């Protein structure tokens, strides 16, 4: 079962991006085989509603688990409606994040974080 991780690059050597809506890629990884595929986050170029766009993409990819730093209320509601479990991890190498995930060390996020953290609220309108 593949999981999605918000990341800065396109492979296992990249880092987790703590920003959900504005991360450049989602890495879809099979934790057992470590087979992976990077999908661009369409939210990164959104004028507003980046988290919504990103969450829609994660839902469309059909994963059931997401690992990220934090996401705002709109993204949280979509992910939850999509039946996706959100796990929180600190910024750092993706391989390390995967290890923590396999050891069951990542805490589940049960409430949204603050809105508009990805661009510090500077998205244009």
């Amino acid at each position, binding site marked *: 079962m593949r999981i999605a991780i918000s990341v800065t690059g396109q492979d296992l050597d990249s880092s987790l991006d703590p920003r959900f809506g504005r991360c450049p890629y989602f890495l879809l990884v099979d934790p057992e085989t470590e087979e992976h595929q990077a999908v661009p986050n369409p*939210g990164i170029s*959104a*004028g*507003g*509603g*980046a988290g*919504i*766009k990103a*969450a*829609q993409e994660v*839902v*469309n990819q059909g994963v059931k688990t997401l690992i990220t730093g934090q996401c705002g209320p*709109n993204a949280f*509601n*979509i992910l939850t*409606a*999509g*039946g996706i479990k959100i796990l929180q991890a600190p910024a750092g190498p993706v391989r390390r994040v995967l290890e923590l995930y396999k050891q069951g060390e990542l805490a589940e996020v049960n409430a949204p974080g603050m809105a508009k953290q990805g661009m510090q609220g500077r998205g*244009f*309108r």
Partner: protein
Amino acid sequence: MIISVLSGKGGTGKTTVAVNLALSLAETERPILLDADVEEPNVALYLKPDVIVDEVLPVSVPVPEIDLAKCNYCGRCAEFCQFNALAVINGSVMTFPELCHGCGGCAIVCPNRAIREVPRRIGTVEKGSSGPLEFWQGRLNIGEPFAVPVTRLLKQGLSELEGETAVIIDAPPGTACTVVEAIRGSDYALLVTEPTPFGRHDLDLAIQLVRQMRIPHGVIINRAGSNNEIIVDLCNKRNVPILLVIPFSTRFAAMGAKGIPFSRVMPDWQKEFRRLYHAIKELCQCVN
């Protein structure tokens, strides 16, 4: 003739200039004063007698409403929306009305005609008067992100005016959409600045904006003092006239703090603002 007062930098004295200019013309020109800073309107604080509101117009934007009986969750609406105001997830459609710009595109691309637009109230436009002055203001509801529809409705009435009414528009700070909407269609733009590096920087942005919009413009230096040359230098470089200089003095500041437009108690300044108005009128005639 429509004169807009804008600044780039906030807090330079737009409202001070707009109110003093309008009051100085009140008896002779019967101007309309518009507070187009709909996110935080403050002109009314300076108006005595208190504003009497004659008319309140609701401002609404159309937002999508989904008929789930017709929706097949194809997701075209969410794909189409440039502002991500819709998401389609596992047999449900979520809408985010506060992100919707009201373009209606989602309803057009929906192949099942499952979307209709319903109005959502975001603010009000109030029309009234204070003494001889006609006064209109827009007010965006707290927490709403898009001010432009309020500004648009506020200004709609201007196109119905007949003859040569003088209109003074107090624009919001900055150079973004709300300012563009506030000053669009103006005959002249007054750029109020202060002699600080920040004032100069944002004045330059404001100059670029009015140039792009092809609105004739001139500068007012407020809180003028020892550092005026940084503004004069920029105006020379950009070839923009300086029309008025208001000194930095505690007298002005004290009156501002009490909500008293200084020209009310200093008749010389009424003359100055009338002179300013007639200078602008002449400048506009030269352009036309």
